[in-house]
């Protein structure tokens, strides 16, 4: 698929206002200048209202099914930020989300839609588990090798989709998606075989892997009673590097050109297969790395389990989309999503089903989308009035 069809950062179509350059009749330029303040206030209002409506609907849902909305929101806050040590957990949860988002941004800027991050995360974690349960070496060496393995496997998985697209025109949207389902089966299979990932326990009910060696865990440091894993720094540095590379390097420029206008890009020497393919591989690699960070960061425990990826891939993808493919915005957005995740841990105490957190998250996303659409409509109206 061409650039115009992918998740290339456009939440809403920005062509809704007619520019004279588009009709070959006008010769002079456009300038529209509503005051900055008047521009910002209605936009903020739109988003605040949308989010409020979304939260209200969720509260309604909780109440009508017999729960207490206040308790739910309180539990979410407790789990994510209020209870001791929760900041650290939330940050450590945000790290893999951010890694996934960073890679998705790379692919998105190139005009490609990778939606199989969940599978790449899973395989990355699996590869890391394989190495981290077996390799006998000093701590730093094990960590570096296992993280690299995770990234490599994730990247290879995306390479499959890339090859399929550029040699046989299979849309990467569907191939990355199908590869996700295949990845689940691969990892489930690996969990049944001792020589792969299966636990050494003789208990047939156990469907987990072996615990990873102690020195394979990512170290962290203490800060105000929170344990923050080095993984968070890895993720932030990765995001910063990607953001800078996209904006300032020649390769980044070529990649953006490819996403904006592939034909002009080809004219200028950008090979869609090479650069686009590389972008897809990078997005898979960061997702694989996210899986590694997740496993070694200690949040879910110390071993690989079935379904380990736990929606990290989907949520990281949404983070990137909502951050409008901008690396800087991805960081706070990842934190918000992580907060929802960790907050939901505390929901069982309230008696409300844990999955309400998923609903809240999806409703918030919808609220942001509706907000973006309304913002576009409002802007159009303002422009029309300015022109008259």
């Amino acid at each position: 698929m061409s650039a115009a069809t992918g998740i290339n950062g456009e939440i809403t179509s920005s062509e809704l206002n007619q520019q004279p350059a588009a009709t070959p009749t006008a010769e002079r330029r456009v300038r529209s200048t509503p005051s900055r303040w008047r521009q910002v206030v209605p936009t903020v209002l739109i988003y605040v209202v949308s989010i409020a409506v979304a939260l209200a609907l969720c509260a309604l849902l909780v109440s009508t099914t017999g729960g207490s909305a206040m308790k739910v929101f309180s539990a979410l806050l407790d789990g994510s930020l209020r209870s001791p040590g929760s900041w650290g957990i939330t940050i450590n949860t945000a790290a893999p989300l951010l890694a996934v988002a960073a890679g998705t941004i790379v692919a998105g800027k190139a005009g490609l839609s990778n939606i199989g991050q969940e599978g790449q995360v899973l395989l990355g974690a699996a590869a890391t588990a394989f190495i981290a349960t077996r390799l006998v070496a000093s701590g730093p060496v094990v960590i570096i090798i296992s993280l690299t393995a995770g990234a490599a496997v994730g990247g290879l998985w995306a390479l499959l989709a890339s090859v399929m697209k550029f040699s046989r025109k299979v849309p990467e949207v569907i191939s990355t998606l199908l590869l996700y389902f295949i990845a689940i089966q691969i990892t489930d299979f690996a969990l049944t075989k001792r020589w792969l990932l299966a636990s050494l326990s003789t208990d047939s009910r156990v469907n987990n892997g072996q615990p990873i060696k102690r020195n394979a865990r990512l170290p962290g440091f203490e800060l105000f009673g929170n344990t923050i894993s080095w993984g968070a720094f890895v993720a932030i540095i990765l995001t910063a590097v990607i953001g800078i590379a996209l904006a300032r390097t020649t390769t980044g420029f070529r990649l953006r050109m490819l996403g904006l206008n592939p034909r002009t890009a080809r004219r200028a020497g950008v090979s869609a297969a090479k650069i686009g393919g590389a972008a897809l591989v990078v997005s898979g690699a960061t997702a694989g790395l996210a899986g590694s960070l997740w496993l070694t960061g200690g949040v879910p425990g110390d071993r690989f389990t079935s379904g380990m990826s736990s929606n990290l891939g989907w949520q990281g993808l949404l983070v990137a989309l909502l951050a409008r493919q901008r690396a800087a915005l991805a960081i706070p957005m990842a934190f918000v999503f992580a907060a929802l995740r960790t907050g939901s841990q505390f929901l069982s105490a309230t008696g409300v089903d844990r999955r309400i957190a998923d609903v809240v998250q999806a409703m918030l996303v919808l609220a942001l989308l509706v907000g973006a659409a309304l913002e576009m409509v409002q802007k159009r109206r303002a422009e029309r009035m300015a022109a008259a």
Partner: protein
Amino acid sequence: MIAFGGAIWELLSSDSTYASTMRFSTLLAFAAIGEWIAERAGTINISVEGMILTGAFTAALGSDLTGNVWVGLLFGVLGGFLVAYVQGTMSHRFGTNQFVVGLTLNVLAVGLTAFLDAQIEPKVGPAGILRIPGLASIPLIGPALFERTWIQYMLYPLIPLAWWAVYRTRWGLELRCVGENPQAGDVSGIDVSKRRRQGVFVCGLCAGLAGAYLTLGHTGSFTANGLNGRGFLALAAVIFGGWTLKGALGGALIFGFFQALSSVFQALGYKANAQLLTALPYVMALITMLVFAHRSRQPDALARPFVRGLT
């Protein structure tokens, strides 16, 4: 080698192969027909999975509330339509990116149906089996096609209906136009956004029907996230089929066959790796697309948002 040949023969000559295949293929076929219509109008409908799942849940709900399977069916169709309404309106009235909306709706559908299922726990009364005498006696495929739950029979007239609607009516012509060249349609006086929305709505109806079939006809109950990605196989079927109805249905048949293999193998007493069998339909979908997607022609304006005035 001979053993392998013998196994293939047994596979092809067993009733259960055809029956199982039809069960899975019907589900995919309902969804694929809807997705085909949506894509001919220019929308890639990633939320088809959410539509089916929602339809499955609402069908269970309806059946539980009234004890009547017909009502359950209706609820299922409406459930799919509900999701389609959001998808269609946001994509084509508000201009929101259709992928973002679709993915979000999927997440919402999975979470919401699982949540409500845990709260409400609807009990489903499955639809009865209807046997068509005479036709059902055809060896091998007879029972598969004519001795099924009556919901499956809705597929048979749906196929020519869909074909007729898209190729023989003015609505269908406008739909196709809007998927190929919306600017031309706009200039000819067609309401492009409306037709594209309608394409999505029809997909929702069909996917809701698929969901109702899943709950009422196929499994007899609702399982949270019981769809597990099979809705996306409908998407693959449309691509594999080169955006033709025949092709999409062919894809549904093939992918349904591979899904059926795990239960067929069990019935026949063969042992095969569970994960391999589960992965097989997805692998086959990839392989078939590798072979066929290369040559097919997608609607020119597929997944391209339409904006008036870009001339």
